[in-house]
Protein backbone atom coordinates (compact mmCIF):
# COMPACT_ATOMS: atom_id res chain seq x y z
CA UNK A 1 0.00 0.00 0.00
CA UNK A 2 1.34 3.43 -0.74
CA UNK A 3 1.90 5.90 1.96
CA UNK A 4 -0.87 8.04 0.66
CA UNK A 5 -3.48 5.36 0.99
CA UNK A 6 -2.39 4.56 4.52
CA UNK A 7 -2.77 8.06 5.77
CA UNK A 8 -6.04 8.28 3.94
CA UNK A 9 -7.12 5.12 5.76
CA UNK A 10 -6.11 6.66 9.03
CA UNK A 11 -8.02 9.80 8.29
CA UNK A 12 -11.11 7.81 7.50
CA UNK A 13 -10.78 5.96 10.75
CA UNK A 14 -10.41 9.19 12.66
CA UNK A 15 -13.49 10.59 10.99
CA UNK A 16 -15.36 7.47 11.91
CA UNK A 17 -14.29 7.83 15.50
CA UNK A 18 -15.59 11.36 15.61
CA UNK A 19 -18.91 10.17 14.29
CA UNK A 20 -18.97 7.45 16.88
CA UNK A 21 -17.97 9.72 19.70
CA UNK A 22 -21.15 9.08 21.61
CA UNK A 23 -20.28 5.42 21.73
CA UNK A 24 -16.89 6.25 23.17
CA UNK A 25 -18.54 8.40 25.75
CA UNK A 26 -20.81 5.53 26.68
CA UNK A 27 -17.80 3.30 27.07
CA UNK A 28 -15.75 5.73 29.05
CA UNK A 29 -16.97 5.15 32.62
CA UNK A 30 -16.70 1.38 32.29
CA UNK A 31 -13.25 1.44 30.74
CA UNK A 32 -11.92 3.90 33.28
CA UNK A 33 -13.39 1.87 36.10
CA UNK A 34 -11.86 -1.34 34.86
CA UNK A 35 -8.52 0.38 34.30
CA UNK A 36 -8.50 1.72 37.83
CA UNK A 37 -9.89 -1.16 39.79
CA UNK A 38 -8.58 -4.13 37.88
CA UNK A 39 -5.51 -3.19 35.92
CA UNK A 40 -4.00 -0.57 38.17
CA UNK A 41 -3.40 -2.90 41.11
CA UNK A 42 -1.23 -5.01 38.83
CA UNK A 43 1.69 -3.00 40.12
CA UNK A 44 1.36 -5.48 42.95
CA UNK A 45 2.73 -8.18 40.69
CA UNK A 46 6.12 -6.78 41.55
CA UNK A 47 5.73 -8.71 44.80
CA UNK A 48 5.96 -11.94 42.88
CA UNK A 49 9.50 -11.20 41.78
CA UNK A 50 10.72 -9.39 44.82
CA UNK A 51 11.32 -10.05 48.47
CA UNK A 52 8.38 -8.23 49.84
CA UNK A 53 8.56 -7.51 53.53
CA UNK A 54 5.32 -6.90 55.39
CA UNK A 55 4.94 -3.33 56.37
CA UNK A 56 7.37 -1.89 53.88
CA UNK A 57 6.37 -0.35 50.60
CA UNK A 58 5.95 -2.78 47.74
CA UNK A 59 8.18 -0.69 45.55
CA UNK A 60 11.05 -0.82 47.96
CA UNK A 61 11.20 -4.57 47.88
CA UNK A 62 14.45 -5.85 46.35
CA UNK A 63 14.50 -7.98 43.22
CA UNK A 64 14.30 -11.65 44.01
CA UNK A 65 14.26 -13.23 40.63
CA UNK A 66 11.85 -16.03 40.00
CA UNK A 67 12.49 -17.92 43.16
CA UNK A 68 8.89 -17.78 44.30
CA UNK A 69 7.80 -19.22 41.00
CA UNK A 70 10.37 -21.95 41.36
CA UNK A 71 9.14 -22.63 44.86
CA UNK A 72 5.62 -22.84 43.60
CA UNK A 73 6.52 -25.27 40.84
CA UNK A 74 8.51 -27.51 43.12
CA UNK A 75 5.70 -27.51 45.66
CA UNK A 76 3.15 -28.43 43.06
CA UNK A 77 5.34 -30.89 41.22
CA UNK A 78 4.26 -33.51 43.67
CA UNK A 79 0.71 -32.29 43.62
CA UNK A 80 -0.49 -33.44 40.25
CA UNK A 81 -3.45 -35.15 41.87
CA UNK A 82 -4.56 -31.79 43.25
CA UNK A 83 -4.72 -30.34 39.75
CA UNK A 84 -6.61 -33.39 38.56
CA UNK A 85 -9.11 -33.08 41.39
CA UNK A 86 -9.66 -29.42 40.64
CA UNK A 87 -10.10 -29.86 36.91
CA UNK A 88 -12.39 -32.85 37.13
CA UNK A 89 -14.71 -31.25 39.62
CA UNK A 90 -14.77 -27.82 38.02
CA UNK A 91 -15.13 -28.86 34.40
CA UNK A 92 -17.85 -31.37 35.21
CA UNK A 93 -19.68 -28.89 37.40
CA UNK A 94 -19.43 -26.18 34.75
CA UNK A 95 -20.64 -28.27 31.85
CA UNK A 96 -23.24 -30.26 33.74
CA UNK A 97 -24.36 -27.21 35.60
CA UNK A 98 -25.05 -25.24 32.45
CA UNK A 99 -26.60 -28.13 30.58
CA UNK A 100 -28.94 -28.90 33.47
CA UNK A 101 -29.85 -25.25 33.79
CA UNK A 102 -30.61 -25.11 30.09
CA UNK A 103 -32.76 -28.21 30.23
CA UNK A 104 -34.48 -26.92 33.31
CA UNK A 105 -35.27 -23.61 31.60
CA UNK A 106 -36.67 -25.35 28.53
CA UNK A 107 -38.86 -27.75 30.46
CA UNK A 108 -39.93 -25.05 32.83
CA UNK A 109 -41.32 -23.11 29.94
CA UNK A 110 -43.53 -26.06 29.15
CA UNK A 111 -45.29 -25.95 32.49
CA UNK A 112 -48.85 -24.95 31.82
CA UNK A 113 -49.85 -23.50 35.10
CA UNK A 114 -48.16 -20.12 35.34
CA UNK A 115 -48.42 -19.78 39.08
CA UNK A 116 -46.72 -23.11 39.59
CA UNK A 117 -44.11 -22.24 37.00
CA UNK A 118 -43.24 -19.05 38.78
CA UNK A 119 -43.13 -20.86 42.10
CA UNK A 120 -40.74 -23.49 40.79
CA UNK A 121 -38.52 -20.85 39.27
CA UNK A 122 -38.39 -18.91 42.51
CA UNK A 123 -37.67 -22.05 44.46
CA UNK A 124 -34.73 -22.87 42.23
CA UNK A 125 -33.05 -19.74 43.45
CA UNK A 126 -33.13 -20.63 47.12
CA UNK A 127 -29.89 -22.60 47.29
CA UNK A 128 -27.95 -19.60 46.12
CA UNK A 129 -28.67 -17.77 49.36
CA UNK A 130 -27.19 -20.32 51.63
CA UNK A 131 -23.70 -20.26 52.96
CA UNK A 132 -21.65 -23.42 52.72
CA UNK A 133 -21.81 -23.94 56.45
CA UNK A 134 -25.56 -24.22 56.22
CA UNK A 135 -25.52 -26.36 53.12
CA UNK A 136 -23.12 -28.71 54.81
CA UNK A 137 -25.38 -28.88 57.84
CA UNK A 138 -28.18 -30.17 55.66
CA UNK A 139 -25.92 -32.57 53.81
CA UNK A 140 -24.64 -33.82 57.12
CA UNK A 141 -28.18 -34.43 58.29
CA UNK A 142 -28.79 -36.44 55.15
CA UNK A 143 -25.57 -38.27 54.45
CA UNK A 144 -23.64 -38.71 57.64
CA UNK A 145 -23.26 -42.15 59.15
CA UNK A 146 -26.30 -41.49 61.30
CA UNK A 147 -28.06 -39.41 58.72
CA UNK A 148 -31.43 -39.87 57.21
CA UNK A 149 -30.24 -41.59 54.06
CA UNK A 150 -28.24 -44.21 55.88
CA UNK A 151 -30.96 -44.69 58.45
CA UNK A 152 -33.60 -45.35 55.84
CA UNK A 153 -31.39 -47.60 53.73
CA UNK A 154 -30.57 -49.63 56.78
CA UNK A 155 -34.14 -49.94 57.94
CA UNK A 156 -35.14 -51.04 54.44
CA UNK A 157 -32.51 -53.71 54.74
CA UNK A 158 -30.60 -52.62 51.68
CA UNK A 159 -27.31 -52.14 53.49
CA UNK A 160 -26.11 -53.28 56.88
CA UNK A 161 -23.25 -50.89 57.58
CA UNK A 162 -23.78 -47.18 56.99
CA UNK A 163 -22.25 -45.71 53.86
CA UNK A 164 -19.65 -43.15 54.73
CA UNK A 165 -20.35 -40.68 51.96
CA UNK A 166 -18.77 -37.67 53.58
CA UNK A 167 -15.51 -39.33 54.36
CA UNK A 168 -14.82 -41.48 51.35
CA UNK A 169 -12.31 -40.63 48.64
CA UNK A 170 -14.44 -42.38 46.05
CA UNK A 171 -17.46 -40.20 46.58
CA UNK A 172 -15.74 -36.80 46.76
CA UNK A 173 -16.10 -35.91 43.11
CA UNK A 174 -19.66 -37.05 42.79
CA UNK A 175 -20.63 -35.26 45.97
CA UNK A 176 -19.10 -31.94 45.04
CA UNK A 177 -20.32 -32.00 41.45
CA UNK A 178 -23.86 -32.80 42.52
CA UNK A 179 -23.84 -30.13 45.18
CA UNK A 180 -22.42 -27.55 42.79
CA UNK A 181 -24.95 -28.27 40.07
CA UNK A 182 -27.77 -28.14 42.59
CA UNK A 183 -26.47 -24.91 44.03
CA UNK A 184 -26.32 -22.87 40.86
CA UNK A 185 -29.15 -24.38 38.89
CA UNK A 186 -31.42 -21.50 39.70
CA UNK A 187 -28.73 -18.90 39.21
CA UNK A 188 -27.69 -20.23 35.83
CA UNK A 189 -31.21 -20.79 34.62
CA UNK A 190 -32.13 -17.15 35.14
CA UNK A 191 -30.10 -16.25 32.09
CA UNK A 192 -31.68 -18.96 30.01
CA UNK A 193 -35.15 -18.02 31.12
CA UNK A 194 -34.48 -14.42 30.19
CA UNK A 195 -33.24 -15.54 26.82
CA UNK A 196 -36.38 -17.63 26.29
CA UNK A 197 -38.47 -14.62 27.20
CA UNK A 198 -36.84 -12.79 24.35
CA UNK A 199 -37.65 -15.33 21.68
CA UNK A 200 -40.04 -13.71 19.22
CA UNK A 201 -43.43 -15.31 19.17
CA UNK A 202 -43.38 -15.45 15.37
CA UNK A 203 -40.77 -18.16 15.40
CA UNK A 204 -43.14 -20.39 17.31
CA UNK A 205 -46.08 -19.48 15.11
CA UNK A 206 -44.08 -20.21 12.03
CA UNK A 207 -43.10 -23.58 13.41
CA UNK A 208 -46.62 -24.44 14.34
CA UNK A 209 -47.82 -23.52 10.90
CA UNK A 210 -45.31 -25.99 9.58
CA UNK A 211 -46.92 -28.64 11.74
CA UNK A 212 -44.46 -28.77 14.60
CA UNK A 213 -45.40 -30.62 17.77
CA UNK A 214 -44.50 -29.31 21.14
CA UNK A 215 -41.30 -31.35 21.14
CA UNK A 216 -40.37 -29.99 17.74
CA UNK A 217 -40.86 -26.51 19.08
CA UNK A 218 -38.56 -27.20 22.00
CA UNK A 219 -35.90 -28.72 19.81
CA UNK A 220 -36.01 -26.45 16.79
CA UNK A 221 -37.09 -23.12 18.20
CA UNK A 222 -36.30 -22.83 21.89
CA UNK A 223 -33.08 -24.74 21.97
CA UNK A 224 -31.29 -23.00 19.11
CA UNK A 225 -32.14 -19.65 20.63
CA UNK A 226 -30.47 -20.65 23.84
CA UNK A 227 -27.27 -21.98 22.35
CA UNK A 228 -25.62 -18.55 22.07
CA UNK A 229 -26.20 -17.92 25.76
CA UNK A 230 -24.89 -21.35 26.60
CA UNK A 231 -21.74 -20.76 24.63
CA UNK A 232 -21.14 -17.39 26.20
CA UNK A 233 -21.51 -18.85 29.67
CA UNK A 234 -19.26 -21.78 28.84
CA UNK A 235 -16.51 -19.55 27.53
CA UNK A 236 -16.79 -17.27 30.52
CA UNK A 237 -16.68 -20.20 32.88
CA UNK A 238 -13.67 -21.77 31.25
CA UNK A 239 -11.37 -19.10 32.53
CA UNK A 240 -12.22 -20.01 36.11
CA UNK A 241 -11.71 -23.72 36.14
CA UNK A 242 -8.73 -23.49 38.43
CA UNK A 243 -10.60 -21.47 41.00
CA UNK A 244 -12.52 -22.93 43.89
CA UNK A 245 -14.55 -21.54 46.74
CA UNK A 246 -12.38 -21.97 49.78
CA UNK A 247 -15.39 -21.78 52.11
CA UNK A 248 -16.81 -24.81 50.44
CA UNK A 249 -13.67 -26.86 50.57
CA UNK A 250 -12.74 -25.98 54.10
CA UNK A 251 -15.92 -27.65 55.14
CA UNK A 252 -16.01 -30.65 52.89
CA UNK A 253 -12.34 -31.61 53.06
CA UNK A 254 -11.28 -33.94 55.84
CA UNK A 255 -8.47 -36.39 56.44
CA UNK A 256 -10.45 -39.29 55.04
CA UNK A 257 -11.22 -37.90 51.59
CA UNK A 258 -8.39 -35.45 51.13
CA UNK A 259 -6.67 -37.45 48.39
CA UNK A 260 -9.52 -36.73 45.99
CA UNK A 261 -11.10 -33.71 47.62
CA UNK A 262 -8.09 -31.43 47.84
CA UNK A 263 -8.28 -28.66 45.29
CA UNK A 264 -5.66 -26.27 44.02
CA UNK A 265 -6.74 -23.24 46.04
CA UNK A 266 -6.90 -25.29 49.21
CA UNK A 267 -3.44 -26.68 48.61
CA UNK A 268 -2.01 -23.23 48.00
CA UNK A 269 -3.76 -21.84 51.02
CA UNK A 270 -2.26 -24.46 53.26
CA UNK A 271 1.30 -24.18 52.03
CA UNK A 272 1.80 -20.75 50.63
CA UNK A 273 -0.51 -18.22 52.09
CA UNK A 274 0.35 -18.57 55.69
CA UNK A 275 1.79 -15.74 57.71
CA UNK A 276 1.67 -12.98 55.20
CA UNK A 277 3.73 -14.74 52.57
CA UNK A 278 2.39 -12.32 50.01
CA UNK A 279 5.21 -12.78 47.55
CA UNK A 280 4.45 -16.45 47.18
CA UNK A 281 0.72 -15.83 47.00
CA UNK A 282 1.21 -13.23 44.29
CA UNK A 283 3.41 -15.55 42.26
CA UNK A 284 0.67 -18.13 42.39
CA UNK A 285 -1.86 -15.52 41.34
CA UNK A 286 0.27 -14.59 38.34
CA UNK A 287 0.54 -18.19 37.21
CA UNK A 288 -3.18 -18.70 37.61
CA UNK A 289 -3.99 -15.58 35.64
CA UNK A 290 -1.74 -16.58 32.77
CA UNK A 291 -3.15 -20.07 32.63
CA UNK A 292 -6.73 -18.82 32.85
CA UNK A 293 -6.18 -16.36 30.04
CA UNK A 294 -4.65 -19.02 27.82
CA UNK A 295 -7.64 -21.23 28.49
CA UNK A 296 -10.04 -18.41 27.82
CA UNK A 297 -8.47 -17.54 24.50
CA UNK A 298 -8.26 -21.20 23.58
CA UNK A 299 -11.88 -22.00 24.32
CA UNK A 300 -12.97 -18.85 22.57
CA UNK A 301 -11.02 -19.82 19.47
CA UNK A 302 -12.47 -23.32 19.48
CA UNK A 303 -15.90 -21.86 19.80
CA UNK A 304 -15.32 -19.55 16.86
CA UNK A 305 -14.14 -22.39 14.69
CA UNK A 306 -16.89 -24.75 15.71
CA UNK A 307 -19.90 -22.51 15.99
CA UNK A 308 -18.77 -19.23 14.48
CA UNK A 309 -19.67 -17.60 17.70
CA UNK A 310 -17.18 -16.19 20.11
CA UNK A 311 -16.80 -13.58 22.71
CA UNK A 312 -13.99 -11.61 21.18
Amino acid at each position, binding site marked *: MTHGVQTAGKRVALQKMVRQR*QLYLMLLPAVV*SVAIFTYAPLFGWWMAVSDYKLGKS*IFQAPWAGFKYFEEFFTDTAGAGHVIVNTLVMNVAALVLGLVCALAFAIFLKEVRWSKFRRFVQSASFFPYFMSWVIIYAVIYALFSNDGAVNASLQSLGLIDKPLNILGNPNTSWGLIITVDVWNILGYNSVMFIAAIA*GIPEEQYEAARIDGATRFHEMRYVTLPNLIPTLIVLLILGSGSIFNSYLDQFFIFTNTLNISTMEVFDYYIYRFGLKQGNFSYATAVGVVKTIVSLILLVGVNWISRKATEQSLF
Partner: protein
Amino acid sequence: MKRKIGAFDLINGLVMLLITITMIYPFWYVLCYSLSDMGLTGGSKLLLWPRGFSLDSYTVAFSNATIMHGFMISVARSVLGPLLMLFISSMAAYAISKNDLVGVKWIRRFLFFSMYVSAGLLPGYILIRTLGLTGTFWVYILPGVANVFNIVLIRAYVETLPAGLEESAMIDGATYATVFFRIVLPLCVPVIAAVTLYACVGQWNSYIDAQLYNYRNPELYPVQYILYNYIAVKAPTKEASAAAHGLITTAHSLRMSVTIITTIPILLVYPFLQKYFASGLLVGAIKA
Protein backbone atom coordinates in the same frame (compact mmCIF):
# COMPACT_ATOMS: atom_id res chain seq x y z
CA MET B 1 -54.76 -22.29 21.03
CA LYS B 2 -55.15 -24.32 24.14
CA ARG B 3 -53.61 -27.74 24.27
CA LYS B 4 -54.79 -30.68 26.21
CA ILE B 5 -52.89 -31.73 29.32
CA GLY B 6 -51.02 -34.79 28.27
CA ALA B 7 -48.82 -37.37 29.88
CA PHE B 8 -45.81 -35.23 29.21
CA ASP B 9 -47.27 -32.44 31.28
CA LEU B 10 -47.85 -34.73 34.22
CA ILE B 11 -44.34 -36.11 34.15
CA ASN B 12 -42.88 -32.69 33.65
CA GLY B 13 -44.93 -31.36 36.51
CA LEU B 14 -43.80 -34.15 38.76
CA VAL B 15 -40.16 -33.67 37.94
CA MET B 16 -40.49 -29.96 38.55
CA LEU B 17 -42.11 -30.65 41.87
CA LEU B 18 -39.28 -32.92 42.89
CA ILE B 19 -36.72 -30.34 41.86
CA THR B 20 -38.58 -27.74 43.84
CA ILE B 21 -38.52 -29.91 46.90
CA THR B 22 -34.77 -30.44 46.68
CA MET B 23 -34.30 -26.73 46.22
CA ILE B 24 -36.54 -25.61 49.01
CA TYR B 25 -35.98 -28.35 51.51
CA PRO B 26 -32.62 -27.09 52.77
CA PHE B 27 -34.09 -23.68 53.33
CA TRP B 28 -37.03 -25.23 55.11
CA TYR B 29 -34.61 -27.23 57.22
CA VAL B 30 -32.84 -24.03 58.21
CA LEU B 31 -36.12 -22.38 59.09
CA CYS B 32 -37.24 -25.31 61.20
CA TYR B 33 -33.91 -25.60 62.91
CA SER B 34 -33.84 -21.91 63.76
CA LEU B 35 -37.28 -22.17 65.31
CA SER B 36 -36.52 -25.36 67.18
CA ASP B 37 -36.00 -25.59 70.86
CA MET B 38 -32.29 -26.33 71.09
CA GLY B 39 -32.89 -28.12 74.31
CA LEU B 40 -34.50 -30.90 72.35
CA THR B 41 -32.77 -31.09 69.04
CA GLY B 42 -29.54 -32.91 69.09
CA GLY B 43 -29.44 -35.40 66.35
CA SER B 44 -28.53 -35.21 62.77
CA LYS B 45 -31.92 -36.37 61.64
CA LEU B 46 -33.99 -34.71 59.02
CA LEU B 47 -36.37 -32.05 60.20
CA LEU B 48 -39.76 -31.76 58.64
CA TRP B 49 -41.04 -29.25 61.12
CA PRO B 50 -39.54 -27.48 64.11
CA ARG B 51 -38.76 -29.66 67.09
CA GLY B 52 -40.54 -27.85 69.83
CA PHE B 53 -40.75 -24.15 69.26
CA SER B 54 -38.44 -21.44 70.39
CA LEU B 55 -37.59 -17.95 69.25
CA ASP B 56 -34.46 -17.90 71.41
CA SER B 57 -32.05 -17.94 68.50
CA TYR B 58 -33.74 -14.93 66.99
CA THR B 59 -33.78 -13.13 70.32
CA VAL B 60 -30.08 -13.62 70.70
CA ALA B 61 -29.41 -12.56 67.11
CA PHE B 62 -31.51 -9.42 67.43
CA SER B 63 -30.07 -8.54 70.81
CA ASN B 64 -27.45 -6.75 68.78
CA ALA B 65 -28.93 -3.29 68.57
CA THR B 66 -26.99 -2.23 65.53
CA ILE B 67 -28.89 -4.56 63.25
CA MET B 68 -31.47 -2.00 62.27
CA HIS B 69 -28.83 0.42 61.11
CA GLY B 70 -27.15 -2.40 59.27
CA PHE B 71 -30.34 -3.10 57.39
CA MET B 72 -30.43 0.48 56.20
CA ILE B 73 -26.89 0.29 54.92
CA SER B 74 -27.62 -2.98 53.18
CA VAL B 75 -30.74 -1.64 51.53
CA ALA B 76 -28.90 1.47 50.42
CA ARG B 77 -26.14 -0.44 48.73
CA SER B 78 -28.50 -2.99 47.22
CA VAL B 79 -30.41 -0.21 45.53
CA LEU B 80 -27.70 2.27 44.61
CA GLY B 81 -25.15 -0.27 43.55
CA PRO B 82 -27.24 -2.06 40.93
CA LEU B 83 -28.63 1.23 39.61
CA LEU B 84 -25.24 2.72 38.97
CA MET B 85 -23.89 -0.55 37.68
CA LEU B 86 -26.76 -0.93 35.25
CA PHE B 87 -26.35 2.54 33.88
CA ILE B 88 -22.64 2.21 33.24
CA SER B 89 -22.53 -1.43 32.22
CA SER B 90 -25.46 -1.37 29.83
CA MET B 91 -24.09 1.64 28.00
CA ALA B 92 -20.76 -0.09 27.66
CA ALA B 93 -22.47 -3.29 26.50
CA TYR B 94 -24.28 -1.43 23.77
CA ALA B 95 -21.13 0.30 22.61
CA ILE B 96 -19.10 -2.86 22.29
CA SER B 97 -21.85 -4.63 20.46
CA LYS B 98 -21.13 -2.42 17.50
CA ASN B 99 -18.70 -4.34 15.31
CA ASP B 100 -17.82 -1.28 13.31
CA LEU B 101 -16.64 0.70 16.28
CA VAL B 102 -13.03 1.64 15.70
CA GLY B 103 -10.81 -0.41 17.98
CA VAL B 104 -13.69 -2.52 19.27
CA LYS B 105 -11.65 -5.72 19.20
CA TRP B 106 -9.11 -4.28 21.56
CA ILE B 107 -11.68 -2.74 23.81
CA ARG B 108 -13.42 -6.08 24.10
CA ARG B 109 -10.22 -7.84 24.97
CA PHE B 110 -9.36 -5.14 27.43
CA LEU B 111 -12.65 -5.70 29.20
CA PHE B 112 -12.89 -9.47 29.03
CA PHE B 113 -9.40 -10.20 30.16
CA SER B 114 -9.96 -8.08 33.23
CA MET B 115 -12.28 -10.77 34.54
CA TYR B 116 -9.46 -13.21 34.85
CA VAL B 117 -6.79 -10.86 35.99
CA SER B 118 -6.35 -10.59 39.69
CA ALA B 119 -3.62 -8.66 41.37
CA GLY B 120 -4.25 -10.09 44.78
CA LEU B 121 -5.61 -8.93 48.08
CA LEU B 122 -2.89 -6.59 49.12
CA PRO B 123 -2.42 -4.41 46.02
CA GLY B 124 -6.18 -4.11 45.76
CA TYR B 125 -6.31 -2.89 49.30
CA ILE B 126 -3.53 -0.39 48.74
CA LEU B 127 -5.35 0.97 45.70
CA ILE B 128 -8.59 1.41 47.57
CA ARG B 129 -6.76 3.15 50.32
CA THR B 130 -4.90 5.44 47.95
CA LEU B 131 -8.19 6.41 46.36
CA GLY B 132 -9.47 7.33 49.78
CA LEU B 133 -12.27 4.81 49.65
CA THR B 134 -11.51 2.99 52.89
CA GLY B 135 -13.96 3.88 55.60
CA THR B 136 -16.56 5.16 53.14
CA PHE B 137 -19.89 3.97 51.83
CA TRP B 138 -18.71 4.29 48.23
CA VAL B 139 -16.28 1.44 48.56
CA TYR B 140 -19.34 -0.79 48.32
CA ILE B 141 -20.47 0.76 45.07
CA LEU B 142 -17.64 2.11 42.96
CA PRO B 143 -15.41 -0.92 42.41
CA GLY B 144 -18.31 -2.95 41.09
CA VAL B 145 -19.66 -0.32 38.77
CA ALA B 146 -18.30 -1.85 35.57
CA ASN B 147 -19.22 -5.47 35.95
CA VAL B 148 -17.74 -7.11 32.89
CA PHE B 149 -19.71 -10.30 33.32
CA ASN B 150 -22.91 -8.31 33.05
CA ILE B 151 -21.55 -6.30 30.17
CA VAL B 152 -20.93 -9.54 28.31
CA LEU B 153 -24.41 -10.84 29.02
CA ILE B 154 -26.15 -7.65 28.02
CA ARG B 155 -24.08 -7.40 24.87
CA ALA B 156 -24.98 -10.96 23.91
CA TYR B 157 -28.62 -10.10 24.33
CA VAL B 158 -28.34 -6.86 22.37
CA GLU B 159 -26.81 -8.74 19.49
CA THR B 160 -29.89 -10.88 19.16
CA LEU B 161 -32.05 -7.87 18.50
CA PRO B 162 -32.97 -7.28 14.87
CA ALA B 163 -30.50 -4.89 13.25
CA GLY B 164 -33.21 -3.27 11.20
CA LEU B 165 -34.58 -1.45 14.23
CA GLU B 166 -31.54 0.65 14.75
CA GLU B 167 -30.89 1.25 11.11
CA SER B 168 -34.31 2.68 10.49
CA ALA B 169 -34.04 4.88 13.55
CA MET B 170 -30.65 6.21 12.59
CA ILE B 171 -31.76 6.93 9.07
CA ASP B 172 -34.44 9.02 10.64
CA GLY B 173 -31.70 11.03 12.31
CA ALA B 174 -31.49 9.48 15.77
CA THR B 175 -28.15 9.53 17.55
CA TYR B 176 -26.57 6.52 19.17
CA ALA B 177 -27.66 7.75 22.57
CA THR B 178 -31.29 8.13 21.52
CA VAL B 179 -31.30 4.73 19.91
CA PHE B 180 -29.86 3.17 23.00
CA PHE B 181 -32.08 4.77 25.59
CA ARG B 182 -35.31 4.87 23.57
CA ILE B 183 -35.18 1.67 21.57
CA VAL B 184 -32.57 -0.84 22.63
CA LEU B 185 -32.79 -0.53 26.39
CA PRO B 186 -36.55 -1.08 26.62
CA LEU B 187 -36.14 -4.21 24.53
CA CYS B 188 -33.52 -5.54 26.89
CA VAL B 189 -35.81 -5.66 29.87
CA PRO B 190 -35.47 -9.41 30.44
CA VAL B 191 -31.68 -9.40 30.57
CA ILE B 192 -31.62 -6.16 32.53
CA ALA B 193 -33.97 -7.65 35.06
CA ALA B 194 -31.85 -10.76 35.32
CA VAL B 195 -28.68 -8.75 35.75
CA THR B 196 -30.36 -6.50 38.31
CA LEU B 197 -31.35 -9.57 40.25
CA TYR B 198 -27.77 -10.84 40.28
CA ALA B 199 -26.52 -7.42 41.31
CA CYS B 200 -29.05 -6.93 44.10
CA VAL B 201 -28.40 -10.33 45.53
CA GLY B 202 -24.66 -9.82 45.21
CA GLN B 203 -24.82 -6.52 47.05
CA TRP B 204 -27.12 -7.87 49.70
CA ASN B 205 -25.00 -10.89 50.45
CA SER B 206 -21.61 -9.29 50.38
CA TYR B 207 -19.70 -8.66 53.56
CA ILE B 208 -16.11 -9.26 52.58
CA ASP B 209 -15.71 -5.67 51.44
CA ALA B 210 -16.98 -4.42 54.78
CA GLN B 211 -14.63 -6.82 56.51
CA LEU B 212 -11.63 -5.59 54.55
CA TYR B 213 -12.17 -1.88 54.15
CA ASN B 214 -14.68 -0.70 56.71
CA TYR B 215 -14.08 -2.79 59.76
CA ARG B 216 -13.05 0.28 61.70
CA ASN B 217 -16.31 2.04 60.90
CA PRO B 218 -19.22 0.34 62.64
CA GLU B 219 -21.68 2.90 61.28
CA LEU B 220 -21.04 1.53 57.80
CA TYR B 221 -21.52 -2.14 58.57
CA PRO B 222 -24.07 -3.87 56.37
CA VAL B 223 -26.33 -6.34 58.11
CA GLN B 224 -24.57 -9.39 56.67
CA TYR B 225 -21.31 -8.29 58.20
CA ILE B 226 -22.81 -7.55 61.60
CA LEU B 227 -24.29 -10.99 61.73
CA TYR B 228 -21.22 -12.67 60.32
CA ASN B 229 -19.16 -10.95 62.98
CA TYR B 230 -21.57 -11.93 65.64
CA ILE B 231 -21.00 -15.54 64.81
CA ALA B 232 -17.41 -15.60 63.60
CA VAL B 233 -16.27 -13.76 66.69
CA LYS B 234 -15.68 -16.36 69.35
CA ALA B 235 -18.98 -18.04 70.01
CA PRO B 236 -18.42 -20.52 72.83
CA THR B 237 -18.57 -18.14 75.77
CA LYS B 238 -21.63 -16.46 74.37
CA GLU B 239 -23.57 -19.64 74.04
CA ALA B 240 -22.64 -20.79 77.49
CA SER B 241 -23.86 -17.60 79.01
CA ALA B 242 -26.83 -17.41 76.74
CA ALA B 243 -27.73 -20.86 77.91
CA ALA B 244 -27.43 -19.77 81.49
CA HIS B 245 -29.71 -16.86 80.76
CA GLY B 246 -32.46 -19.25 79.87
CA LEU B 247 -31.96 -18.66 76.19
CA ILE B 248 -30.97 -21.95 74.75
CA THR B 249 -29.09 -21.52 71.60
CA THR B 250 -26.00 -22.86 69.93
CA ALA B 251 -23.67 -21.30 67.40
CA HIS B 252 -25.27 -23.60 64.86
CA SER B 253 -28.74 -22.45 65.63
CA LEU B 254 -27.62 -18.83 65.59
CA ARG B 255 -26.23 -19.32 62.11
CA MET B 256 -29.56 -20.71 61.02
CA SER B 257 -31.55 -17.79 62.32
CA VAL B 258 -29.02 -15.35 60.91
CA THR B 259 -29.41 -16.98 57.49
CA ILE B 260 -33.16 -16.57 57.68
CA ILE B 261 -32.96 -12.97 58.82
CA THR B 262 -30.64 -11.98 56.03
CA THR B 263 -32.43 -13.97 53.33
CA ILE B 264 -36.03 -12.93 53.89
CA PRO B 265 -35.66 -9.40 52.50
CA ILE B 266 -34.11 -10.53 49.26
CA LEU B 267 -36.80 -13.13 48.85
CA LEU B 268 -39.33 -10.34 48.96
CA VAL B 269 -37.58 -8.49 46.17
CA TYR B 270 -37.24 -11.54 44.01
CA PRO B 271 -40.85 -12.07 42.82
CA PHE B 272 -40.97 -8.43 41.84
CA LEU B 273 -38.01 -8.80 39.51
CA GLN B 274 -39.11 -12.17 38.30
CA LYS B 275 -42.06 -10.57 36.56
CA TYR B 276 -39.65 -8.79 34.29
CA PHE B 277 -37.14 -11.31 33.27
CA ALA B 278 -39.47 -14.21 32.97
CA SER B 279 -42.22 -12.52 31.06
CA GLY B 280 -42.28 -12.55 27.35
CA LEU B 281 -42.29 -9.34 25.42
CA LEU B 282 -44.06 -8.81 22.21
CA VAL B 283 -40.92 -8.03 20.29
CA GLY B 284 -42.56 -8.62 17.00
CA ALA B 285 -44.99 -5.76 17.45
CA ILE B 286 -42.18 -3.25 17.77
CA LYS B 287 -40.67 -4.16 14.46
CA ALA B 288 -41.23 -1.10 12.36
